[in-house]
């Protein structure tokens, strides 16, 4: 019996030739990631272990992105802990403000998450790199501490759910819509403890940016990871960026899946997740009249070039509705510069949106766009839990950038066709 991609990647990082679902294993990791919320605790725990050095200064990434540029004194103290630790251990991939980005936009762009690798990050959206054919998964601060010391982590080998997307993409449908649609079908614990594999004609047709959006939200179905087998699109993306050698890994022909589910692109229109769970999805034609106070376009889910180009194509020549504010957050410094070169920033500013420096900011209710009681946001982010973007009495709706941009013009959740 063969192995799935996840099983094969895990096995290759142990001294075993085969691993099976349910096995508890210890695996070597290729990259360990932390941010300004999770790394401070990891650093404290690392010091408690008592080792003098990190396992490999080139395989740790520290990205202060959540509350940076620091919003208050306390968060500044947290970021300072990262900075000092990075200096003390000569961490190669510490990304200071000015060189940083939202971690899951940044690491792929920098070639620091690669096909066939195991990447763990003290951030739940580390699963983003599944789009590159990596086994990438979120862990906690203590896991990060142990991995910084030993270069290893413990795993329970997950069984795999395979999702086949056939047919053609409807207009304005992106990776974000495929994953929201999937979560709507299986629920927020529909893939609990499992690895997900995404494949089929629709996935083949997705750009790298759109695939990253899709794998990013695997955690919102409870999954350990959401993997897309590397193809030419993947190799074209990673080859020019890769900071290390890598070996793509593919599932065996006789791999065993817990379940195989097939979807047809014809059934999938742009999706909107209603409060307060990502599984509360509706097709855009079933949304009804939902007035909004704020639009956020950005985050580790949808802050990449394709997202900004899509938003700009809709906002161009239009004005943001008088009753709302629009916050656009490019994912990395390179994305800011590229958007500037392409004239996208002019389009956004002309439309009377604001453009922020890269930060997780409002996505998690940190800063740069917190909601008041009773306010409603439409965001291209990944979670719409109670209080996620601010007051516990506020609401977050999730969509792709095209719907978000169209809604910015109309002031209510709208299909792109309504404004074009």
């Amino acid at each position, binding site marked *: 019996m063969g192995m799935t991609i996840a099983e094969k990647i895990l096995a290759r990082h142990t001294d075993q030739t085969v691993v099976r679902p349910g096995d508890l294993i210890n695996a070597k990791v290729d990259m360990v990631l932390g941010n300004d919320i999770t790394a401070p605790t990891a650093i404290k725990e690392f010091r408690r272990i008592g080792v003098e050095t990190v396992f490999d200064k080139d395989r740790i990434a520290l990205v202060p992105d959540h509350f940076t540029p620091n919003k208050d004194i306390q968060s500044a103290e947290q970021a300072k802990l990262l900075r000092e630790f990075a200096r003390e251990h000569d961490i190669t991939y510490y990304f200071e403000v000015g060189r940083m980005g939202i971690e899951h936009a940044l690491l792929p762009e920098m070639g620091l998450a690669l096909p066939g690798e195991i990447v763990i990050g003290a951030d739940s959206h580390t699963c983003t790199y599944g789009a590159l054919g990596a086994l990438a998964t979120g862990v*906690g601060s203590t896991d990060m501490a142990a991995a910084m010391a030993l270069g290893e982590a413990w795993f329970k080998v997950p069984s795999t759910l395979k999702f086949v997307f056939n047919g053609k993409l409807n207009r304005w449908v992106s990776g974000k819509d495929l994953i929201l649609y999937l979560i709507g079908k299986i629920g927020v614990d529909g893939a609990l403890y499992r690895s997900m594999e995404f494949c089929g004609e629709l996935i083949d047709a997705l750009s790298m940016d759109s695939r990253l959006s899709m794998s990013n939200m695997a955690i919102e179905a409870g999954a350990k990871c959401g993997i897309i087998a590397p193809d030419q699109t993947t190799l074209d993306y990673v080859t020019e960026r890769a900071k290390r050698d890598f070996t793509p890994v593919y599932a065996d022909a006789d791999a065993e899946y817990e379940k195989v589910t097939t979807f047809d692109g014809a059934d999938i229109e742009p999706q909107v997740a209603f409060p307060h769970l990502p599984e509360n999805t509706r097709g855009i034609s079933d949304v009804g009249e939902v007035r909004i106070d704020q639009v956020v376009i950005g985050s580790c889910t949808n802050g990449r070039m394709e997202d900004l180009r899509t938003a700009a194509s809709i906002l161009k020549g239009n004005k943001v509705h008088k009753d709302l504010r629009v916050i656009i957050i490019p994912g990395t410094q390179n994305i800011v510069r590229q958007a500037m070169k392409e004239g996208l920033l002019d389009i956004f500013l002309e439309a009377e949106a604001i453009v922020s420096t890269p930060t997780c900011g409002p996505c998690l209710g940190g800063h740069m766009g917190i909601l008041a009681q009773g306010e409603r946001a439409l965001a291209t982010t990944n979670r719409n839990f109670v209080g996620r973007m601010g007051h516990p009495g506020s609401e977050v709706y999730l969509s792709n950038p095209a719907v978000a941009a169209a809604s910015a013009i109309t002031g209510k959740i709208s299909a792109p066709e309504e404004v074009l």
Partner: protein
Amino acid sequence: MQGHVWKFGTDVDTDAIIPARYLNTSDPVELAKHVMEDADPTFAQKVTEGDIIVARKNFGCGSSREHAPIAIKTAGVACVIAHSFARIFYRNAINIGLPILESPEAAEKIEEGHEVKVDLTTGTIFNLTTGETYQAAPFPPFMQTIMDKGGLIGYVQWRLQTESSTGPY
């Protein structure tokens, strides 16, 4: 262990357990002051040492913030019993030494205010209020060892000192 039960529903997320507006610190005592705030704003005032949280499916879904189990543990909660746990919360709880048990039956039948006794080595849950007994799967030996060492850091220290040990790490 034995304690008073506080009952929660389905899909209690880590933003409800410890909202991000309090994550500008990693001080466990500060975090515990806001534990479960967006699920029950009065919880931090009500909870006392040794109490037990019982919840339905997918407890701790959402972010990887270890601040969530840290806040629960520091507030004095002795154990969390749920129908199921989100995977990062599950490993974080083990790694910091917060006892957790998965039992759909217990999650269904235990109500707020019940008095519950838990035997972690066997996974047996006794409902002292109703007289019922529920069985959760005990931890696999490897996870039990981590718990016995007070969490993953204690386990890693122990492993580094006794290289002869087997299993993960």
